[in-house]
C-alpha cells in the first residue's frame, strides 16, 4: 500500500481568521490515496471537506493558514515553488468543482477553455489541440463536439457544462482527480450519469480520484475507501465495504440513516440528525459530535476521542463508545 501511495495528507490543519475569531476548518487530518484508487470524503455542509480539497490543491483563500504536509507524487505541495505547483496543476492534479454554472468562464468559449489547458501543459499545435478537444468532449458524452467548441458556457445545460468541466479536468491525463461535490448542483437524473462517467474515465485512465460529497449513497459503490468528516476532523475511515458492513462511529450511522430509502412508505419522515454542527470558531473540549450523539456519556464531553484503529488497521474511528458489532455482542 505504501509503495504506490500517490497522495498523502499529513496532519493538515487549516485555520481561517474571521471577525468572530479563528475558525478551524480542517483539524489535523491524515489521509492517503493510492495510485489508481478512489477515496470518498463524506460529511455535511461546513464539515471542512471543501476546505480540505482546497488545501490539497493549494487553492485556499489568501488569509487561510495551513499547517502540515500534502505529499503528492513525492513532493510536498505546501512547500513547492509556485511555478512548479502551476506545472503540476491541471497536468497531474486536476479538479472538478461543485457548480458548473460558475466554474466555467462566461466570456470564453468552451474551445478556448479546453485548448488553453492542453497547450499550457502539453506541447500541442493548434490543430492537434483542437482535435484532442473534440475527442475529449466526445469522450465525456457531449453530442456534436465540433460545434460546441465555438459555444459559450451559457448556451449549455448544467449537466453539459459539468461534462465540459470533466473534459477539462481529464484533458492532460491527470494522476489524481479531485471531484468536489460534482453532482450536487445537478438534477437527480443527471447525477448518476455524471458519476458513472467519472467512474468509467477513472478506470480507463487508471487515475486516482477523491470524491467529496455529503451523500453516503454516492460513495457506496464507487469508492475503495471512505473518510467521514465532522467539524473539521476525520471521525471514521475504512475500506468502503468494511464501513458499510459495520460502521462504528455514531455520526456515520446517523448520516446513513438520514438517506431517503426507496422502499420506505410514502411520507415517511427522514430521521434527520437533530441539532447543528458545533460553531467552528468555538471548538468543544470533548467529541464535537457529543451534543448530538444519542450514545454520548460524560467522558465524551470532556475528552476528545482520538482516531484509532480497531480490529483491523484499515478501519479507524474516533469514538469512546463505538456502535457494537455482532462480534462484540457475542463476546
Amino acid at each position, binding site marked *: 500500500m505504501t509503495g504506490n501511495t500517490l497522495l498523502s495528507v499529513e496532519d493538515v490543519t487549516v485555520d481561517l481568521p474571521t471577525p468572530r475569531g479563528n475558525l478551524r476548518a480542517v483539524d489535523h487530518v491524515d489521509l492517503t490515496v493510492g495510485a489508481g484508487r478512489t477515496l470518498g470524503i463524506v460529511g455535511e455542509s461546513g464539515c471542512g471537506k471543501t476546505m480540505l480539497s482546497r488545501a490539497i*490543491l493549494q*487553492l485556499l483563500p*489568501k488569509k487561510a493558514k495551513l499547517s502540515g504536509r500534502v505529499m503528492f507524487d513525492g513532493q510536498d505541495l505546501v512547500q513547492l515553488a509556485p511555478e512548479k505547483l*502551476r*506545472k*503540476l*496543476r*491541471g*497536468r497531474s492534479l*486536476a*479538479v472538478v*468543482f461543485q*457548480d458548473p454554472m*460558475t*466554474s*466555467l*468562464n*462566461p*466570456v*470564453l468559449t468552451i474551445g478556448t477553455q479546453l485548448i*488553453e*489547458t492542453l497547450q*499550457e*501543459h502539453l506541447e500541442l499545435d493548434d490543430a492537434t489541440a483542437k482535435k484532442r478537444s473534440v475527442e475529449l468532449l466526445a469522450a465525456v458524452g457531449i453530442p456534436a463536439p465540433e460545434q460546441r467548441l465555438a459555444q*459559450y458556457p*451559457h*448556451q449549455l445545460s448544467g449537466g453539459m457544462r459539468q461534462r465540459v*468541466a470533466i473534459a*477539462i479536468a481529464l484533458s492532460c491525463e491527470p494522476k489524481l482527480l479531485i471531484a468536489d461535490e460534482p453532482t450536487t448542483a445537478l438534477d437527480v437524473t443527471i447525477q448518476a450519469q455524471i458519476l458513472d462517467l467519472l467512474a468509467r474515465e477513472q478506470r480507463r485512465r487508471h487515475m486516482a480520484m477523491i470524491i467529496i460529497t455529503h451523500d453516503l449513497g454516492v460513495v457506496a459503490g464507487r469508492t475503495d475507501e471512505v473518510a467521514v468528516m465532522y467539524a473539521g476532523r476525520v471521525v471514521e475511515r475504512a475500506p468502503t465495504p468494511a464501513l458499510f458492513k459495520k460502521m462504528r462511529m455514531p455520526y456515520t450511522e446517523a448520516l446513513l440513516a438520514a438517506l431517503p430509502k426507496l422502499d420506505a412508505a410514502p411520507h415517511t419522515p427522514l430521521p434527520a440528525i437533530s441539532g447543528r454542527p458545533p460553531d467552528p470558531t468555538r471548538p468543544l473540549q470533548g467529541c464535537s459530535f457529543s451534543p448530538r450523539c444519542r450514545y454520548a456519556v460524560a467522558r465524551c464531553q470532556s475528552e476528545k476521542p482520538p482516531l484509532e484503529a480497531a480490529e483491523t488497521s484499515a478501519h479507524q474511528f474516533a469514538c469512546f463508545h463505538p456502535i457494537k458489532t455482532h462480534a462484540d455482542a457475542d463476546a
Partner: protein
Amino acid sequence: MAFFVARRLLYLLPVLIAVSLLTFSIASLLPGDLAYTILGDQATPENVAALRADMGLDHPIWWRYLGWLGNVLQGDFGRSFRTGQTVLQAVAERLPVSIELMLLAQFGALAIGVPLAIICAARSGGPFDRFMTGTAFGMLSVPTFLSAILLIYLFAVELRWLPATGYVPFGEDPLANLRFFVLPALTLALAEWPTIMRVLRSDMIATLQEDYIALAKAKGLTPARILFVHALKPSSLTLVTITGINIGRLIGGAVIVETIFALPGIGRLLIGAILTRDLIILQGVVLLVGAGFVVMNFLVDMLYAVLDPRIRHGHA
C-alpha cells in the same frame, strides 16, 4: 445580434428628439430678445420688428422648433449672426482639436489606470494596493485647473520642455502639434485615471473571487493569462461605461483645459458663443455635441455585447 443592434438603434430616436427639444428650448427661453441682441442698443423698434419677422420670431415656439428641426434634418444648423460662419463650419473647424485632445487624454488615462488597477487587484490589500488607492483618492480631489497650472509651471516654466499654450494643426507640423497637446492631454488624463483605476480594481477584485478563476488556477494557467484573459474581460463592463461617458463628455470639449492652454476646440467655441450671446451657434453646437454623446453611448452598448456573449445572445 442584428436584432440587438436594431433595437438599440431604435432607442436612439426618442433620445435624440429629446436632446433637440431641450437644446432648442434652452436657447429660446433665455431672457432677452434675440433681435435686440443682434441689433444692439441703438436699434429702433421698426428695425427690431422687421428682424423678428425676418427670423420668424413672431411665430409660436413649437412652430419655430419644427422649422429649426426641419432645417437641421436637411443639414442646415443655422449661421452665426456675428461671424456669418455656419454652425457646421464652426464645428468642423474645431472638432478635430477636441477629438485629438479627447483621444490623447483617454489613451493616457487608460495607460495609467488599467495597469495599476490590474496590479492592485492582483495584490489587493498589499502595500502597493493601499498606496495606489490612497494616491488615486487624493488625485480625484485635485481640480483640473490646479493640475494644469502645476504642469505648466513644471514642464513649461521650470524645465522648458514643452510649450505652455498654443496650437498648430496636425497637418502642418505633426511633431509641434503633439508637443502642444502633451500638457493639456496629461492634465485631463491625471483627472481621469483615478476613476478608471478604482472602478476596474474593484470589479477585478470581485472577478478574482469567482469559481472560474479558481478553476483557471487549478488548470495551471500562468498568472498573466489568468489576469488578462480570464479576469480582465469580465471585469471591464463598468470601465467601458465610464470611458464612454468620458469620451462623450470630451467631444463637447474640455472647457477649462482648452481655455487654459488656448486650444481652439469645441469647448472654447461654446464659451465664446455664450459670452457673445451667439444663440444660433450655441444651440447648434449643443445639439451636435448631445448627438455625439448619444451615439457614443450606443457604441458603448455595442461594446458590452462584444465583451459579454450573454448580452449578445439575449441572456442576463
